[in-house]
């Protein structure tokens, strides 16, 4: 177990190194000059040159990458080109909002997805099942900015149940979390359905039924816990999809998280922020996957880590 953990951690570090290098190269070859963005439209050639030198952007790419990396291992993500603030400060200020949104999003997708999956499995083959599966397909395919604006329009503007964007109270959280959850709920309802269908075919369910247990007790006590376990392990992998989703959802709802930070930085070629958010997200994804793998054997003793 310990050996496995060490091996996986080393692998994780290598993956993060790779991510940092590829992102750095992509930003370097981008046909947009960050110095121009800092210097502005009225800058003299001298000002532009001064800024380029001070930021070390006149150095060869590998030298620049090495400098970034040496800072990174010491916990220094650099300063934003345009805001001049430490990137770590900016991310730290916004990370709680993103984590809250992500947790609420996962809660929503599980709540919606698992419920629909169980219902579909119970009514397997009937029109309700088919209807739900079509719905889940739509949910997976619908673009999040459309879903977000639609929910905003109906529930905030027309009905006035929730605030129109912003951050602060539990009411602010509902619509962005549901938007984020709807896409994932499509996947989960399909997985839950097949897992549930599998479990309901098992011998112990037939035994339970033969014992004369109520249908409700069979479903809630015998089938559901067994069907849900493999799905829990998927949440870790889900974090990657969520990281993509929050960029869109945070922008639509004015949610002050790292997705919004990244979106604004990309438009202005603020490379330290783009790198910082990428590295934090990559770390979250790598850790999420690792966690999912570690949790699996706890849930299902048949799986062993080696």
């Amino acid at each position, binding site marked *: 177990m310990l050996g496995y953990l060490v091996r996986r951690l080393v692998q994780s570090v290598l993956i993060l190194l790779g991510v940092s290098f590829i992102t750095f190269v992509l930003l370097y070859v981008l046909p947009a000059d960050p110095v121009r963005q800092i210097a502005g*439209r009225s800058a003299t050639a001298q000002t532009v040159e001064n800024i380029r030198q001070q930021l070390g952007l006149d150095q060869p790419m590998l030298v620049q990458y090495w400098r970034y990396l040496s800072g990174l291992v010491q916990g220094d993500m650099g300063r*934003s080109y*345009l805001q001049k603030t430490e990137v770590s400060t900016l991310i730290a200020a916004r990370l709680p909002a993103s984590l809250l949104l992500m947790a609420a999003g996962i809660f929503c997708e599980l709540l919606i997805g698992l419920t629909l999956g169980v219902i579909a499995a119970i009514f397997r083959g009937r029109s309700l099942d088919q209807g739900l599966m079509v719905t889940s397909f739509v949910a997976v395919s619908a673009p999040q900015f459309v879903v977000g604006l639609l929910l905003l329009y109906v529930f905030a503007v027309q009905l006035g149940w929730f605030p129109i964007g912003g951050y602060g109270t539990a009411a602010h959280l509902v619509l962005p979390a549901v938007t984020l959850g709807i896409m994932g709920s499509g996947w989960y309802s399909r997985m839950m359905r097949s897992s549930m269908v599998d479990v309901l075919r098992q011998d112990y369910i037939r035994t339970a039924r033969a014992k004369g247990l109520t249908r409700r007790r069979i479903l809630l006590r015998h089938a559901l816990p067994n069907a849900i376990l493999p799905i829990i392990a998927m949440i870790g992998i889900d974090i990657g999809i969520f990281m993509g989703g929050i960029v869109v959802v945070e922008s639509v709802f004015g949610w002050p998280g790292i997705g919004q930070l990244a979106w604004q930085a990309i438009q202005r070629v603020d490379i330290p922020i783009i790198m910082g958010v990428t590295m934090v997200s990559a770390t979250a994804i790598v850790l999420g996957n690792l966690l999912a793998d570690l949790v699996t054997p706890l849930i299902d003793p048949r799986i062993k880590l080696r």
Partner: protein
Amino acid sequence: MKTLLASTAILLASALTGMAQEYTPDPNATAGGMITVTYKDDVATLDPAIGYDWQNWSMIKSLFDGLMDYVPGTTELRPGLAESYTISDDGTVFTFTLRDGVIFHNGREMSAEDVKYSLDRVTTPETQSPGAGFFASIAGFDAISSGAAETLSGVEVVDPKTIKITLSRPDATFLHVMALNFASIVPKEAVDAHGTDFGKNPVGTGAFKLGEWTIGQRLVFEKNADYWREGVPYLDGVTFEVGQEPIVALLRLQQGEVDVPGDGIPPAKFQEVMGDPDQAARVVEGGQLHTGYITLNVGIAPLDKLEVREAINMAINKERITQIINGRAVPATQPLPPSMPGYTDGYDGYAFDADAAKDKLVEAGLADGFSTELFVMNTDPNPRIAQAIQQDLKAIGVEVAIRSLAQANVIEAGGAGEAPMIWSGGMAWIADFPDPSNFYGPILGCAGAGEGGWNWSKFCDESIDAMATAADSMTDPSAPERMEMWSDVYMEVMQQVPWVPVFNEQRYTMKSARMGGDDALYVDPVSIPVNYDYVYVTE
């Protein structure tokens, strides 16, 4: 020595309030109340030496002051932290007398040493100020910007209330430069205490001070009770909520949650808003010092031929393009916008005439037309405008391929001189200060034509450059002869047409029913977008 503002200074001393003679405050104005303003993008910094964004420009104006200022809602200069000033006869020495009793937000009194420190700070390379170049006419600028000196030799503290600034050449725009945000006076101890984080902990002399800043969410400005101008600001404070899409901001305005949507009315909602009398009554329209244009790269064949550039000018249907943006603009005839001094009245530019355009192409030996590329920023409505340009040019046989890219990439291609044509939408020139010279140097002059410069036509005519230099060597910035010289400069430019001037955008913004104050304050040409110091609430 001639004293330009002598009369103003005398009036200043005798008038009941410091600004009575320059600006009549609204007699209905009432003090108190908070307002809420929204912006889409986060506020990057409130450091006046660095900030150069749509959202932080007017915020910085409310937190800081410079030696010069503008009469609210107008483009007219008035003294700011300077009480008066004199200019030497050759126009190279400016002596400013500072006001008494101006207190920084940290409680210390401002003095001439702070002025010197602030000018040194904005020009020194370590600050990385995008505005450093504006101060190039101060003696010693080259030495400080190359790192050879640590201080501007041309800025001299005469006594705690007097500062003398010597220029290396006459610069008619200098007083406007001293009114730029970049020339704001900052206290050294506060900058030293916060280092590069000064932009998050601003300390100035302005009408408001920063109360709270929750990164990515909200900034709260509080009234500066010790503000040196009597009677203002009226508001107790302003809450800025950032990260709000313009469409969301408009919906919140309609629900009464927002007082001013900082990014204006989203184009897609414009007609709906104007169609509702109640909402339309709260829309404020104003001119702005803006020109939207197509650059024609004189270094790329066949745009290097004058006849081809003329043909393109005649082929563009500017009326139709203004319709694409719901008529929120007026067709342009020349680089300067109509509200800018130096604008040439009575000049009609190139009329829309496809047949004449075809004749010009025949003259250029391109009877069969040619193909070229048009670069455009990829946000609405710019790609739609590019399509209109494409259709107009197709009608005279010119095949245009549209390259729709992110803003930074268009700027890069333009600076490198790789783009034959660029539609300026989303990156168009809005004046830094209301003087005709501001539309020349960086975007039409030789200075901007180098690698990376904003002169995307790469047009460089040394004789026109000489005319511009002559106009700026005059001492009185608003002298009629000077405006005539600038008018000549732009007429000379139009002879060679490195641009198609397309339209001058009008600014449309909205306010909640409780907002009071002159409409001009909501479309202030200088405190863009809103002059927070002078607006008030009625309840």
